[in-house]
């Protein structure tokens, strides 16, 4: 079993383009007729659905940003009657910052098929046992891979995240051959198994599909060695359905984008201009088949390169490199999206000055997350407990805002490094940028 949907996955490029053009024309009409905020954007840009004849006209359509979706929370971008929907998923973040994505049954099937393609591309067959250790719930990781595994016909272990003892026990007792989780959790599981005296060759795993956070080639090699498996990357975002928008094949050279369902573009994040293939820029997706939440030209803010180089796996879908950075200030920490502005909101609400610094590092393949906050006189007390008490209160407030708990450290005024008078907000020491060595220049 080399492909899950061979016809689609190996379609000649000219046919892909033709198919995309046909679907785009219909999708633009659907969105224009049913998504009021996007209709306003198109009207403002002076573009009508009848102006779009195919992918060559795509650049005329306005972009959709995360801010647009937040402004229209919760249902502004819903394109079908709610009674036609069967599911929502949602991004992490505060109430005001959440994005709620709606799915019809058709949308769920399509998404799960994308995940099924990823599993098969990683060597999965109905004989496999797939342990899904992504979080289940609003997060798309658990639901996506769970559905994909069903579609392939694998026995699925819906473990969700955490509870390492149970993960290891079920993996060993039920003979899991595939592991799906964040790369940092895979590294953590490997570490925990080593501590329990389980050697890499003793576990039943043969492959893993890891995503939802940035990881490097070096980390891939470390995970492959420590678990004795092949480790594959997967890409996606809630706004475009979830994981599976793009997936790695056994060549492990970039991720194939499911071009029968999505059009990918690379733009200059400053000007919005479309850049030629091979350029580094911001990735933009257009959903061609989604009914309930069909976003046109959605700006992912992920910086990467697209390549049409022929892949040894036989798939014709264009490949994207691992994201090489962001065009905004979003951080992905332990798989959770964190914006510095969220931290600022908490600090101001709790009566602190917005003089803070986020320090992120990766120690033993897992992210550390520290926030330094400058104190002022009123907060200072003469006892240690008064200060640590304040720190604990801030940790709790941050956890409820962000979904993950940072370590908070109160520091002396003016002790945070300034750059041109402003505190340096983010120090990311993780060095997660990996070069795409497979790209020929």
């Amino acid at each position, binding site marked *: 079993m080399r492909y899950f949907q061979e016809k689609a996955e190996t379609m000649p490029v000219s046919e892909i383009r033709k198919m995309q053009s046909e679907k785009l024309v219909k999708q633009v009409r659907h969105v224009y007729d049913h998504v009021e905020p996007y209709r306003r954007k198109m009207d403002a840009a002076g573009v009508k659905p009848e102006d779009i004849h195919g992918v060559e006209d795509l650049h005329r359509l306005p972009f959709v940003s995360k801010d647009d979706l937040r402004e229209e929370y919760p249902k502004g971008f819903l394109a079908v009657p709610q009674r036609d929907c069967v599911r929502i998923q949602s991004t992490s973040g505060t109430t005001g910052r959440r994005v709620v994505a709606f799915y019809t049954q058709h949308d769920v099937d399509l998404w799960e098929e994308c995940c099924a393609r990823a599993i098969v591309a990683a060597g999965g067959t109905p004989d496999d046992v797939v342990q899904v250790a992504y979080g289940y719930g609003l997060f798309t990781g658990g639901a996506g891979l769970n559905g994909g595994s069903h579609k392939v016909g694998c026995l699925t272990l819906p473990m969700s995240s955490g509870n390492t003892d149970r993960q290891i026990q079920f993996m060993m007792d039920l003979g899991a051959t595939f592991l799906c989780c964040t790369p940092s959790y895979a590294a953590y599981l490997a570490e925990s198994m080593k501590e329990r005296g389980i050697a890499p060759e003793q576990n039943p795993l043969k492959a893993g599909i890891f995503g939802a956070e940035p990881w490097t080639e070096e980390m891939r090699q470390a995970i492959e060695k420590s678990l004795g498996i092949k480790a594959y990357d997967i890409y996606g975002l809630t706004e475009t359905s979830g994981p599976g928008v793009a997936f790695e094949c056994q060549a492990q050279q970039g991720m194939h984008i499911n071009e029968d369902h999505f059009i990918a573009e690379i733009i200059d994040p400053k000007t919005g201009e479309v850049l030629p293939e091979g350029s580094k820029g911001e990735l933009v997706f257009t959903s061609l088949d989604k009914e309930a939440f069909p976003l046109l030209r959605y700006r992912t803010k992920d910086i990467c390169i697209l390549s049409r180089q022929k892949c040894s796996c036989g798939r014709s879908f264009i490949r994207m490199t691992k994201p090489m950075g962001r065009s905004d200030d979003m951080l992905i920490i332990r798989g959770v999206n964190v914006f510095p502005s969220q931290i600022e909101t908490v600090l101001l609400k709790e009566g602190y000055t917005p003089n803070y610094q986020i320090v992120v590092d990766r120690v033993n393949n897992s992210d550390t997350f520290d926030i330094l906050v400058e104190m002022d006189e009123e907060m200072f*007390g003469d006892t240690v407990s008064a200060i640590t008490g304040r720190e604990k209160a801030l940790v709790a407030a941050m956890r409820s805002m962000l979904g993950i708990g940072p370590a908070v450290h109160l520091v002396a005024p003016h002790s945070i490094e300034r750059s041109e008078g402003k505190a340096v907000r983010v120090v990311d020491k993780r060095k997660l940028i990996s070069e795409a060595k497979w790209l020929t220049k």
Partner: protein
Amino acid sequence: MALNQLSVFVDNTPGALSDIAEVLANADINLRALSIADTERFGILRMIVSDNRMAVSVLKGKGYIVKETEVVGVKIGDQPGKMAEALKVLDLAKINLEYLYAFCARTERHAYLVIRVEDNAKAEEVLTAAGFHMIEDADVAKL
């Protein structure tokens, strides 16, 4: 009419204490006693100094966070067992200590305890009743 202690927030970085000492030295401020509460990330320097007003002003001028806190100053004999005696009094009155440090005077045969409790007045009352003398800022200036 009380003993006032200065507390300074100190980042746990090399030279942090030495910088504070220099600021005080330049202002001709004499340290009578000090203690440091240290944690992994920061410290709290607590001091009894010869001139609080001056010390606060020069430290704030340098951007330090300084806080004045009323503490209990108890004069005790500079002999074995005297601290135990004073603490027993607080213990019997069920007064919890948050922290304590001590210093000796140069000239007299006395030592001084600097005690931080939740209720200063109550501590002073029971200590006075047990025959101890309290000291105040004015006394420190004379030492």
